[in-house]
């Protein structure tokens, strides 16, 4: 029998999240974001959060909900263009923002979970991103030193999960979720469908349960689409 990671709901899953903590939140845009835990944190009295997330949601959904209530002190992201409130708080200096290249963000999370303290990458060399960072040439090309990221809590969203914490993601909702799951001291997974251990084919698991400490079946997923683009038949 595998170790059971199941908790009842978002309220139980987010227990222990406190003001001033660093959180990682999976998702790309509004795709694959932990909707249930975000809603729960809006209700909780937690502030001064540092949130590591590729994007910051939109004004009235995703991390935008925490921004509206000024619960976030600092964002570490790669692209925040879809959120007016974010831009306002950033330009006015209310919100501290660390913008970093998307691939460096992904790799920094992966490194954090994989026990690699830092790595060299060419991304950002010669730009603001490189300021204050060690530069070293490899194969005749300059690279900058980027440090691993970890979090007090990583909060991810998967399509299916089992009681052992094994996760399967659907389509492009995978994105940052697997790396962030690795990099949390405590990783919370909310899933659309929670099944008993032994139900999922071990060959198809994207994130092994060892990276997940708490799992629960989410409810009422809105899965909002940011840019609905279609063609006619």
């Amino acid at each position, binding site marked *: 029998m595998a170790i059971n990671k199941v908790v009842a709901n978002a309220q139980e899953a987010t227990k222990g999240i406190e003001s001033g903590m660093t959180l990682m939140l999976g998702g*790309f845009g509004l*795709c694959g974001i932990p909707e249930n835990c975000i809603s729960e944190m809006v209700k909780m009295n937690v502030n001064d959060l540092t949130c590591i997330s590729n994007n910051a949601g939109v004004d009235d959904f995703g991390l935008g909900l925490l921004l509206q209530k000024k619960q976030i002190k600092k964002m570490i992201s790669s692209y925040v263009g879809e959120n007016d409130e974010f831009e306002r708080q950033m330009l006015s200096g209310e919100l501290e923002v660390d913008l970093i*290249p998307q691939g460096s963000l992904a790799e920094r999370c992966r490194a954090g979970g994989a026990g690699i303290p830092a790595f060299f990458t060419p991304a950002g060399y010669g730009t603001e991103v490189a300021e204050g960072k060690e530069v070293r040439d490899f194969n005749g090309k300059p690279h900058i030193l980027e440090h691993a990221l970890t979090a007090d809590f990583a909060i991810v969203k998967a399509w299916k999960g089992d009681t052992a914490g094994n996760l399967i993601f659907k389509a*492009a909702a995978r994105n940052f979720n697997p790396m962030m799951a690795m990099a949390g001291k405590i990783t919370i997974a909310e899933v659309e469908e929670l099944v008993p251990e032994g139900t999922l084919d071990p060959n198809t698991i994207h994130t092994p349960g060892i990276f997940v400490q708490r799992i629960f079946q989410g409810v009422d997923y809105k899965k*909002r689409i940011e840019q609905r*683009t*279609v063609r006619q038949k």
Partner: protein
Amino acid sequence: MIIMALDKVGIAKRISQELRDGWYVNLGIGIPTLVANFVPEDITVEFQSENGILGMGPFPFDGEEDADLINAGKQTVTLQPGASIFDSATSFAMIRGQHVQLTVLGAMEVSQNGDIANWKIPGRMVKGMGGAMDLVASAENIIVAMMHTNKKGESKLLADCSLPLTGVACVTRIITNLAALEIKDGAFHLLERAPGVSVEEIKAATAGKLIVPDNVPEMKIK
């Protein structure tokens, strides 16, 4: 001075002529995305979307859109047969590891030594670089798709970029509404004129060092 020789679709059509059979290609947001509509019929390319898709297809039919299947511009898309899905770290391993043959992206400014600026206007627009810095730092073949001048009519092809850089000495080719240009040896080299555009008009719209050969053919756009 605003000359509209090629529209955005025209720029995308001209860029599609740069595609080669068997290439994996990353298209940025805006004009670059349109290039996918004009792949020559006799070649096969696969589009990579940095949020984790290889083999990205066209927009879904009305009613078939899936919130879990979007491109890097957060638009709903589909998968082609043979497509694959992966996480963000794997996606940028493809990019950083130079497994993607061509990157096409937009720019606010490009300098004559190939520097590009496209992510920030200090104090005014701060959206972030997304995957652009990773893409331009590693891709061997970078085409910039953009208008030759900005909304004020000022050249976007400069001696030095004035905006915060996205990458240094990385752009190899630029396709604008006025011209196709190559960047080498610290200068813009004029390759082709857009239909109906004169060399004089291109010279006037280019602030950086421009090398003009004796014969500058006109683009052939279908």
